[in-house]
């Protein structure tokens, strides 16, 4: 049986207003080559100046991942030629990264602690667009110089599922802290995987690097394919090549990108244009003080404090904006369990987009108002479901809408009795059949009553009153 060893290298763009070494806006979606200057465009004579905001963001990520912060670190040049690399080298931290020796916990059956070897700060490259028709390549340098951190895990992951879970939790953590926007598709979060196979008790196998795995699904599929490919080779007594491979989504296979012989020599050396990066105790403390509650702690608290199920807590916490909306609703007086259920079943039906609560369909105040009215019996659940779309559409509160629509709750016993009597007298044949023993008609009769009052009476009271009528107690 083969044992799989997986480590992930994750590049995360830091959310900052400007680039890593110049004051250009870090908006690479703008029109091509509009956010460039002599520094990021690599003009002669330009020099880099480190962006303090990027260092603070990087520090927050390192603290969330329980890393040791190196009080002094430095930058190096990674030299290679590529049209979208403006200076002919990338400024990175090769010899002395700013953070090392961290870990993150994931839940796969039980809790597993995955080691973080190092995190370093570096700059992104531009983007090339190949125009096959015209045989031209165009380059957009807006992204060139955008700040990144590279998070390198220990080879502690054992299955493709664990790898996906690690990526999922890491993404969640970074998005929570506002360090990264979590967009795997557009590449603001990128994942490369290293994988090797070996037999229990034997030395580690040759590792293969797989590049650009931009979804949880592709990551798992690529790793599964690679597990099988390497196992087959090893079974046949062949060697696994030390290669860099690319995952091809269409064929569902990994393909060779570079063999060992083609591996580049990046000629790393210390960046002479930047001094030592010194991080003071105070900066670490400040960065720590701005950290949010981690998703893991939040989930725990939801179960403990709000008595939610572990599943509900996990789903609510999966998006920071959704969790924030939920907490605000509860803070405004909504009962926590009811709020969770209504949010996840009713409200989500009316929401759209990948992160619907970034611009929630209604305010937490309106949602809380609805849930409180429901809890206090001022309205019934069917009424609440009925008015929710209108609340969202018109931006009205539940209280306003109830008043405006003139929906009155039939809540006095007398009124319910009168209403039940009125409805059931119009259904004589069915009442007779019930009384003759056809008791399954009860549901139908209750339904008719509810329908006639448009849900404006408490189902419990209606149920009780109908039974009493049918038993003839009221005659």
């Amino acid at each position, binding site marked *: 049986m083969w044992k799989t060893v997986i480590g992930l290298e994750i590049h995360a763009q830091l959310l900052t207003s400007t680039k890593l070494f110049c004051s250009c806006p870090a908006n690479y979606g703008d029109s091509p080559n509009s956010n460039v200057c*002599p520094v990021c*465009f*690599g*003009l*002669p*004579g*330009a*020099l*880099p*100046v*480190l962006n303090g905001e990027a260092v603070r963001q990087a520090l927050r990520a390192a603290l969330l991942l329980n890393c040791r912060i190196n009080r002094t670190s430095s930058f190096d*040049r990674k*030299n290679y*030629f590529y*049209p979208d690399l*403006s*200076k*002919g*080298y990338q400024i990175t931290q090769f010899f002395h990264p700013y953070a090392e020796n961290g870990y993150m916990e994931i839940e796969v059956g039980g809790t597993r602690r995955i080691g973080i070897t190092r995190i370093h700060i570096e700059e992104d490259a531009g983007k090339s667009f190949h125009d096959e028709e015209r045989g031209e*390549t165009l*380059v957009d340098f807006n992204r060139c110089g955008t700040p990144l951190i590279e998070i390198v895990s220990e080879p502690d992951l054992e299955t493709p599922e664990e790898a996906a879970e690690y990526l999922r939790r890491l993404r969640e953590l970074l998005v929570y802290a506002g360090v990264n926007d979590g967009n795997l598709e557009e590449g603001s979060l990128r994942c490369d995987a290293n994988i090797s196979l070996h037999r229990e008790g034997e030395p580690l196998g040759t590792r293969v690097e797989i590049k650009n795995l931009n979804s949880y699904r592709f990551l798992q599929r690529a790793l599964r394919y690679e597990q099988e490919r390497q196992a087959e080779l090893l079974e046949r007594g062949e060697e696994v090549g030390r290669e860099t491979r690319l995952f091809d989504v269409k064929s569902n296979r990994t393909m060779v990108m570079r063999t060992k012989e083609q591996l580049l*020599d990046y*000629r*790393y*050396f210390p960046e*002479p*244009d*930047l*001094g030592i990066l010194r991080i003071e105790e105070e900066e670490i403390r400040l960065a720590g003080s701005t950290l949010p509650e981690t998703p893991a702690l939040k989930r725990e608290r939801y179960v403990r404090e709000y008595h939610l199920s572990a599943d509900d807590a996990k789903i609510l916490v999966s998006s920071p904006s959704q969790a924030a909306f939920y907490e605000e609703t509860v803070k405004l007086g909504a009962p926590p369990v009811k709020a969770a259920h209504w949010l996840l079943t009713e409200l989500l039906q009316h929401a759209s987009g990948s992160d619907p609560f970034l611009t929630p369909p209604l305010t937490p105040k309106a949602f809380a108002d609805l849930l409180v009215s429901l809890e206090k019996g001022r309205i019934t659940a069917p009424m609440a479901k009925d008015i929710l779309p209108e609340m969202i559409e018109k931006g009205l509160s539940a209280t306003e809408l109830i008043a405006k629509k003139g929906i009155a709750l039939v809540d006095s016993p007398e009124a319910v009795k009168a209403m039940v009597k009125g409805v059931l007298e119009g259904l004589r044949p069915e009442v007779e059949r019930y009384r003759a023993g056809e008791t399954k008609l009860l549901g139908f009769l209750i339904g008719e009553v509810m329908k006639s009052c448009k849900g404006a009476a408490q189902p419990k009271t209606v149920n009780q009153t109908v039974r009493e009528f049918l038993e003839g107690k009221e005659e």
Partner: protein
Amino acid sequence: MTLLCSLNAREIVSGLRKGLFSPQELFHSLRERTASLDGEIGAFLSRNKELAPLAEGPLKGVPVAMKDNILAHGMPLTCASKILENYVAPYDATVVARLKQNGGWVPGKTNMDEFAMGSSTENSALGVTRNPWDLSRVPGGSSGGSAAAVASFQTPLALGSDTGGSVRQPATFCGLYGFKPTYGRISRYGLVAFASSLDQIGLFGRNPEDISLLFENIAGYDPLDSTSLREPLRPDRDETPKNLPALAYLALPDEGVDPEIREAYPRFLKVFQEMGYPLEEVRVSHWEYALYVYYVIASSEASSNLARFDGIRYGFRSPAPSVDALYDETRTKGFGPEVRRRILLGTFSLGAGQYDEYYGKAFQVRNLIAAELRDLFSKYPFLLLPSTPDTAFTLGSKSHDPVKMYYSDFFTIPLSLAGYPALSLPFCLSGQGLPIGFQIAAPYLNDERMLRLASRYEGIVGGEETLKKRFNLGDEAFTAPPESVHNKDNQSEEVFP
């Protein structure tokens, strides 16, 4: 009015203040001077065609020529290379911006060794520069154009860049003061990088006071250069102590120094003795390794710094069927042989298999040299030493032998490796009438103190007078009435037959 060119920077500032002449008159005088003799000297690669309005400031009206690796907005920037032959600077270097803010202006861009790699300006792809003292000789390099421009009175001041001696050596070859400040005192923003950890913008002048005036107005912390120092400038004049400390002077190596320089050295030292300084001879044991260390480190950094000249975004591009071929063709045709040699040397030194043996080892020895000099400067306020092992050599005499050429920087490189401020000073003329100069170096941040010592030295040696005499631009030139000015002008042209 042509003889306005004989004025130094302080005379220009005061003459303009007094209304003795206008900035336009000065501008035209310098243009005429260049028109009449730069055809033979070749100091400038490009000239400013008009004088832009000047700002008010302590440098009001002062022209400062720029080596063509320093960006001046709207002017060409070639680095004397084919790869940038038609490039126009899109922004001002910090030094140029500060010069303009303080009332100064840029008369033109000067020739140099391509990308500042060389010691004779013969590596320029765009033209030859000759030494104004003897047109068969080199002006030195790599900032040879700036040195020649100041020495031939086409500008009172010029900036160059000094990576291993590229200001101090040509200053000596041309009989000037050449100042390389403490690493980090002058912003490198807008200086095209050769070897970032060594590059420092340097100043050429015909006297130390002009250099001080310019230095005070362009130096100082720049947020755009992360290696620039935050220490404030210290132009305040401190009192000379009663008991003068001993100065160190470097023991000459047994070989490799021109006999006339060897013979002049004790007389140079005597100037300081007569000022009242005791002198003590010192030796720096790792000095001779500095040359090797320098060529590994500078070439390594250059191989990376010059990677941006790839034909993709600007500059020369040689069309080719693939991107790799485009790089090969563009860089092979765009760079000259010395630049290619150093890129290859640097690329090799940084390679995964060689890093420890070359770049890594050089880095260690650099630290040893720095430690030894730190020790020396903890004991002495100044170090006196030669500036060059040789006087200006004839064109073509060393260009076939790069290693011999590299030896030109024997006395300047160790100070660059450790970032110390150093100044070359003119001293006397050789039997052939060529300038012989020496060097002072000082502890970190003692730039101003060193310039003040040089002022006293100039008062005794009179380097500026020697230059004026050589080019028939005596003191009477400016004070004389306009009629006689024309006569003088004619005479000055005869200097360069």
